[in-house]
């Protein structure tokens, strides 16, 4: 350690005076490649779908190894057994048909839920009563699991699709409304004023300024709403199964458990996951790429 004494500190540093210079600059065109393309391997490693695909392959390998070692198809079939059950289910048309039933119910409930959420949120941004209404209702109903409403739904709507749709609406509505509303509230004052100087007001203002400006939050709400709806629906189908001969995926899983066809149960679960992954990884990602990421409102 060098000890700093008072005399050393009091010495004032002065920079050395060096000669001046003016230089010619190479014009940008002659500098060669400014941007160099990445190698194929680097590009592959940068692709999210490739990295995720690799993880999926890894999981399949571990599954296969464990199930083979366990060797108990009744409780844990191998990956290949599950795949062939899935193939049979698809070939016989049962899985596609069940999936179709489930998706129809889902889209119906999701769409109605979105419309109601939009109405609630529009009321909430335009009137104070609407704000209070929305926050009170979301505070009340958001913590209530949709499945808990199923008995009531059965009582009101009977055994059938309307009950399921009701439960899905409940699971979508509050999450989406909450996100939409907080998205609207966080739209910058400048953007609002800009919209107003263009002569926009009322519903046109909401549609042309608030909704696109709040789109990142709305999209987040849609994703959460989708996740809730999908889980709720499968669970609800499992609980009360078939209605007028039109069972969904949940019913398919339940049915095969009763006949102890575990590979088919796994195939059903796999389908549930595949649809979930497809909607989240393909549909929502595509929407994001075309909207918020293209507009620079969200990092990709």
């Amino acid at each position, binding site marked *: 350690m060098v000890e700093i004494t008072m005399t050393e500190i009091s010495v004032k540093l002065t920079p050395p005076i060096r000669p001046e210079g003016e230089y010619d600059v190479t014009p940008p065109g002659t500098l060669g490649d400014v941007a160099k393309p990445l190698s194929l391997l680097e590009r592959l490693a940068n692709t999210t779908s490739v990295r995720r695909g690799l993880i999926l392959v890894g999981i399949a390998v571990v599954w296969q190894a464990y199930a083979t070692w366990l060797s108990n198809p009744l409780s844990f079939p191998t990956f290949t057994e599950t795949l062939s059950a899935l193939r049979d289910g698809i070939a016989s048309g049962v899985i596609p048909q069940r999936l179709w039933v489930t998706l129809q119910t889902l889209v119906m409930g999701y769409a109605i839920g979105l419309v109601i959420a939009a109405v609630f949120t529009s009321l909430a941004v335009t009137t104070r009563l609407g704000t209070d209404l929305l926050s009170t209702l979301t505070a009340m109903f958001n913590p209530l699991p949709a499945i808990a409403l199923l008995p009531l739904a059965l009582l009101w709507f009977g055994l059938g699709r309307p009950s399921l749709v009701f439960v899905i609406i409940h699971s979508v509505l509050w999450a989406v409304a909450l996100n939409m509303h907080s998205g609207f509230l966080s739209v910058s004052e400048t953007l609002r004023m800009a919209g107003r100087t263009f002569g926009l007001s009322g519903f*046109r203002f909401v549609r042309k300024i608030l909704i*696109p400006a709040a789109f990142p939050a709305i999209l987040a709400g849609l994703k959460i709403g989708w996740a809730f709806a999908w889980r709720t629906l499968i669970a609800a189908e499992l609980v009360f199964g078939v209605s007028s001969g039109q069972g969904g995926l949940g019913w398919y899983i339940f049915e095969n458990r009763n006949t102890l066809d575990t590979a088919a149960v796994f195939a059903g679960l796999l389908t549930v996951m595949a649809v979930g992954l497809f909607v989240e990884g393909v549909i929502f990602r595509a929407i994001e790429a075309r909207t918020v990421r293209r507009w*620079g*409102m969200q990092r990709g």
Partner: protein
Amino acid sequence: MAMVQRKPPLAASIDPTAAPASQPVLTVDGVTLQYKTPDHLVTATYRVGFDIHPADRLVLLGPSGCGKSTLLKAIAGFLKPVEGSISLKGEPVTGPGPDRMMVFQEFDQLLPWKSVRENVAFPMLENRVPRAEAEARALDAIAKVNLTKFVDVYPHMLSGGMKQRVAIARAMAMRPDVLLMDEPYAALDALTRRKMQEELLQLWEDVRFTLIFVTHSIEEAVLVGSRVVVLSPHPGQVRAELNCHHLDVRHQDGPEFQLLTRRISQMLFEDKSVGH
């Protein structure tokens, strides 16, 4: 500085001795503006009045917090005066509208989900300008602010100065009665700011719009304005109305320019020592 060599000299474009033959476009008369907060009543401006005539470049100059933005918001129609009146072409201002387009200081005034071209055309399309005409006027305005290369780019890919240019193009393309600008260059670096000031003057040479420009920089006021309204510190009152249509970048180092800026700075400085 190459930009300075404009075709007609600025001073020749307005005859200062001629009495204003025109009717004022906008009249601000004894306007007092207040904010009500839960525990305060803040008076932002007190009985402010001035006229704006066609092709004026009126600058509202005053220290930070003297109520310039508030005044501009009131002119835009976002705020109602508690006293006095604001009228546009004889009609009282009741709310915001496309006849008073505003350029804000913040860069986030562009719609992120629209390209430059769409941003500029949007207010026109929303006000029943036919699509073909709106597109043509948008491209023209974008060309005027030298952004033709960027028509299809989204705002997040533009620099701050470019965003402000788009905002100016968007406001101009709408051909408002008055163009309102609230410290549009305050958040830019000095070099870009100077370039933008010159561009704005060049644009005014071409189009002769009516401008209200808010700034807290004395130099910018004298450079950009044809007439400067000096506001006193909080709450803002009109301290002086000065002509500076005869002064621009070429005179910046000249005695007249220096004299005027010193005079204004004395006004602001002396008021400050009284006010606080």
